[in-house]
């Protein structure tokens, strides 16, 4: 009752916030956990937590950094719990100190999206199937091996083959992306 109305997030404001940040946070989280499904769950949990605390949070100021910090902490916990926490690697990936605020301007340019589609289409059929299952179907190597009745080694080899091809085909875009990021940061 003592709270000033301005400080309580209305449901409409909350939905707006949710829609604005959900994907960005998922992208942020998957960089740590390397698993889009786990990332999605972490972001859901963080929003549920924010909802429960919505009366104590100033919507003007801290929501974005609150969300980023919460996701960051949960991701590190996830890595720790799954015995995949390695500080050196997180530093190498520029993830150890990076905040969500810096990586949040997440957009995928249509050109890049189309370039990926083209490169995927160029892959041999079996290889393409496996690559799509893994990268866009969010299936684990083991799940793919089970579904296609092949060994996990075969899945690994096919994935490697696909990724080598994609790297070559997308090389220019990677360079371009790095350049854009460099300009934006300046």
């Amino acid at each position, binding site marked *: 009752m003592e709270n000033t109305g301005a400080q309580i997030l209305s449901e409409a404001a909350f939905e707006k916030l949710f829609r604005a940040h959900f994907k960005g946070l998922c992208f942020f989280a998957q960089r740590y956990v390397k698993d889009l499904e786990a990332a999605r769950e972490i972001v859901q949990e963080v929003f*549920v937590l924010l909802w429960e605390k919505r009366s104590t949070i100033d919507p003007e100021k801290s929501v974005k950094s609150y969300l980023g910090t919460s996701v960051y902490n949960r991701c590190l916990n996830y890595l720790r719990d799954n015995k995949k926490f390695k500080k050196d690697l997180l530093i190498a990936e520029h993830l150890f100190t990076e905040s969500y605020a810096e990586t949040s301007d997440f957009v995928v340019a249509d050109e890049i999206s189309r370039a990926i589609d083209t490169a995927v289409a160029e892959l041999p059929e079996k290889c393409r199937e496996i690559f799509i299952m893994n990268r866009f179907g969010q299936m684990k190597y083991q799940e793919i091996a089970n579904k296609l009745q092949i060994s996990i080694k075969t899945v690994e080899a096919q994935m490697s083959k696909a990724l080598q091809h994609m790297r070559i085909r997308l090389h220019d875009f*990677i360079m371009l992306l790095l350049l854009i990021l460099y300009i934006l940061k300046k």
Partner: protein
Amino acid sequence: METNQTYYSELIHKYFSGEVRHDEINEISDWIGKNENNRKEFDEINEVFQLFQSKAVETVVDVDDEWMKFKASVSYAGQPEQDIYTLKPQRMGRKLWLVRVLQYAAIFVLLAIGGYFLYYHLNRVTEEVLTATGETIKEALPDGTKVTLTTGATLSYPSKFKDTKRKVKLEGEASFEVVHDESQPFLVDAGTVQVEVLGTVFYVNTNAAGNHVEVKVTSGSVAVFYSENPESRIILHAGENIVLSKSGPEEIVPETMLPTVSGKLEFDDQPLSNIILRLNKIYHSDIRIEGEHTGNCRMTATFENQTLDAVLNVIKATLDVTVTGKGKTLVITGKGCK
């Protein structure tokens, strides 16, 4: 070198796919720390994966869907219950209500039955019997009183002392160390003779030679009386003992069984018959009472290390009786009391 490079590229692919084990993470970490080329390889694979991932997030994650999921999870946790109830048909609610009531009723009935049995079990008084068959046994009674039974003795007592007196029944020889409790005197039922105490150490033998009951007091005091005449009590103090005939107050106790007394002799509103009985035992005397009602006269007196003459003088003066005879063979006569 070439195969090595492929091996690590595959390992890094696995890493970004979330497929590596803990030891492989360490392997990658070591490898990229070795030189700048390795580091570049790692960065490039990272970049290409981020391209895929940005597209994956864009295509796989459906924000409308996520919002629905979010609303579902917070509505269970945070929405007023009313909202959930209205979703359920009324009839279903009533059925659940009935099931809930029956569940509680069942729990209540089970608890009541369990409670009743527990209460019954805890409060049930059973008769316990102790018998010293081969050797002397020591046992504690429910109130903490210690009892030592000599071979052949049998003691019966309730598993719980719930009556106004802690009553035990003895046949044979036993010593007691009674826990003090004024509100609940300890009573030894030795057949015709009863011994009542508040808290003391004493000895009872219901099978003393010549059909007698013997009581010895080590500490404290006890009251000894015949079951048929509980009003006539003989108070025994520490160091005193008494031998009573089982068949009744009239019978004279044989001299060989007479006890010696030391210390106080206390009569608390006792009839003369009892006093004389007591004196006969203590002083090894043969005093008889003549006159139908003389024995009924009551008196209260305390004697400490007195001669029999001195005691008799007090009795004469108090009850207005005459004492005739010689030595320890005496006759008391008086007008009698009602």
